[in-house]
């Protein structure tokens, strides 16, 4: 088998240690009959090889839209990219032609979706859908591609892969189906994986197994990983750094341990306070009051101000920029320093 035959010319002209992927001041809006929803309002983040970036935020904060824009699978229309760059090995993918872009998809950057049941095609066997990667991208024969599909299923630890290769997605359990999705993403040994809430649709009991598998493969293959989640608990062990999103913006960006011990943004603080904790068993859980904003009418100033316990007049007037408040720590809050100090982070 020719597992390591793939060459990666991009790797040679990449600056060592330079990020694999940089999202730079991205803006995306949805123009619908009801109005314009500003889904992404200046998101920047980056991932290097071997690094895991967790993207955290409530539902609707723009995590998936950012991922779809990176993959080039955004629904356009109604989606419109109104600004920014997405650089892969330093080259802006938004300026590439369709064909060049397509050759990156699946091969260099692969995506794992939340709900494997709807993300896999119901009318084809999993073997067909896995083998398709090799047949289309590498022109492999049906037989060879099938053999590779079985190897992939073994890789993600699906029992009796040989017997199950011709089964259909609905014949697998939720956890096994998500493993198939992971296998599909791994097929061409990509440099970057974007996992959009890969365990959200699963039973709690299998969530950890699937997450461990993903983390293990990422480590072994030294891939970059963007791990999207709305569950802080999931990412604590696997992520290197976390970007917290709110209303289409990054409000805090920090190494994972720092963010946990001393949040520098009121929103992060609220999220942390709402995780169930063993030492506070029996107490009522904290919940951030109010709801995320309507993206067609984002509040002026800081989008979080109607829900923020720290809010002052300036918060309703000026948008707080994302600034460095401590080494490697960024926060977009007029009172970031106070919040950080209060949490003992400086």
């Amino acid at each position, binding site marked *: 088998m020719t597992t390591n035959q793939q060459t990666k010319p991009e790797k040679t002209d990449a600056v060592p240690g330079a990020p694999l992927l940089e999202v730079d001041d991205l803006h995306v809006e949805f123009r619908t009959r009801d109005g314009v929803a500003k889904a992404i309002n200046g998101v920047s983040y980056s991932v290097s090889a071997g690094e895991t970036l967790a993207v955290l935020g409530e539902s609707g904060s723009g995590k998936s839209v950012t991922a779809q824009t990176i*993959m*080039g*699978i955004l*629904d356009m229309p109604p989606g419109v990219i109104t600004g920014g760059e997405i650089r892969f090995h330093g080259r802006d993918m938004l300026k590439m032609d369709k064909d060049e872009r*397509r*050759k*990156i*998809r*699946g*091969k260099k950057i*692969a*995506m794992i*979706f939340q*709900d494997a049941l*709807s*993300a*896999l*095609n*119901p*009318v084809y*066997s999993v073997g067909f859908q896995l083998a*398709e*990667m090799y047949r*289309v*991208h590498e022109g492999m024969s049906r037989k060879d591609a099938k053999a590779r599909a079985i190897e992939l299923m073994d890789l993600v630890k699906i029992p009796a892969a040989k017997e199950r290769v011709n089964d*259909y997605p*609905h014949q697998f359990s939720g956890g096994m189906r998500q493993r198939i999705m992971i296998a*599909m993403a791994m097929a061409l040994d990509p440099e970057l994986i974007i996992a959009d809430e890969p365990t959200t649709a699963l039973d709690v009991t299998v969530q950890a197994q699937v997450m461990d598998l993903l983390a293990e493969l990422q480590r072994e293959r030294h891939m970059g990983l963007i791990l999207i989640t709305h569950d802080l608990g999931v990412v604590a062990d696997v992520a290197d750094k976390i970007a917290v999103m709110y209303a289409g913006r990054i409000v805090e960006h920090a190494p994972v341990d720092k963010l946990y011990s001393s949040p520098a943004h009121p929103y992060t603080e609220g999220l942390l306070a709402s995780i169930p904790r063993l030492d506070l068993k029996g107490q009522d859980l904290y919940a951030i009051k109010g709801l995320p904003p309507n993206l067609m009418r984002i509040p002026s100033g800081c989008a979080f101000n109607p829900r923020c316990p720290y809010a002052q007049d300036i918060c309703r007037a000026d948008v707080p920029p994302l600034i460095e408040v401590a080494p490697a720590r960024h926060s977009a809050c007029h009172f970031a320093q106070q919040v950080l100090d209060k949490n003992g982070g400086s």
Partner: protein
Amino acid sequence: MGRYVVRRLLQMIPVFLGTTFLIYFMVYQLGGDPISAMFGDKAADPVFVRQMREEYHLNDPLIVQYWYYLTGLLTGDFGTSFSGIPVADELKRAFPISIRLALIAFAIEIVVGVGAGLLAGLRRGKFADSVVLVTTLIVISIPVFVLGYVVQYWLGLKWQLFPATATPGDPTWEDLILPGIVLGSLSLAFVARLTRTSIAENMRADFVRTATAKGLPRRRVVTVHLLRNSLIPVVTFLGADLGALMAGAIVTEGIFNVDGVGRLIYLAVTKHENATVVGAVAALVIVYLVMNLIVDLLYAVLDPRIRYA
């Protein structure tokens, strides 16, 4: 699967008995007296009438007559028309013609209908979509006989693209093109709209997005992933329609002079040839039932989530 087929075949028996009895009842009970109809305006010869009534069991109760008929059917005997021609011979002559006509209509339906639907679905809201929507709406709202005469006049007589009427008795494939277009047009419009809706719906489906994210070329995303899934409801419609095409050709066959089952039934009804009417309808019922079974089995092949046991 095997057991399912057997069960379905067994279920056909009561359906077949029920429908044929109903036809039999309607034709013999509600139709006029066939023997006197043979004489037209002339007075009937009583001896001849008595003889005919004996021979055709017309004096027995209806249910007994039906029983005779049914036992005949089981041995392949569809009875004999009053004019002395075995009904089986008439069917053997007419069915191949109607099947050929139905296949032409069917092919046009699939190629043009699915093609137009795919185009409209992929470009929803664009010009091509509007054209398909308006055209199909027109086709759906025009009565078949109007469409039939329009097509016959323009394509057949004026521009002479294809024969305007069929060769009596044994129409050629070419003869059947215009009637095929007319016969298939209504279903074609439905197929186009069904395909369009299905495509537009699936275009936003997660698995189509996955296919794109896998880096597959757009053509492959559309044909292998989008179209295949979108055709499942269309195939169901097409299958049920193939039976209907054979039965529904009465008007079209009349306009284009095609000697198929439709015309056979029409002529038999006007001449009170009861055995012919019942025989032809019984045969159509069988075609319909078998087509339905095939569609259901095809459905399971197309969508592996469906399992018959």
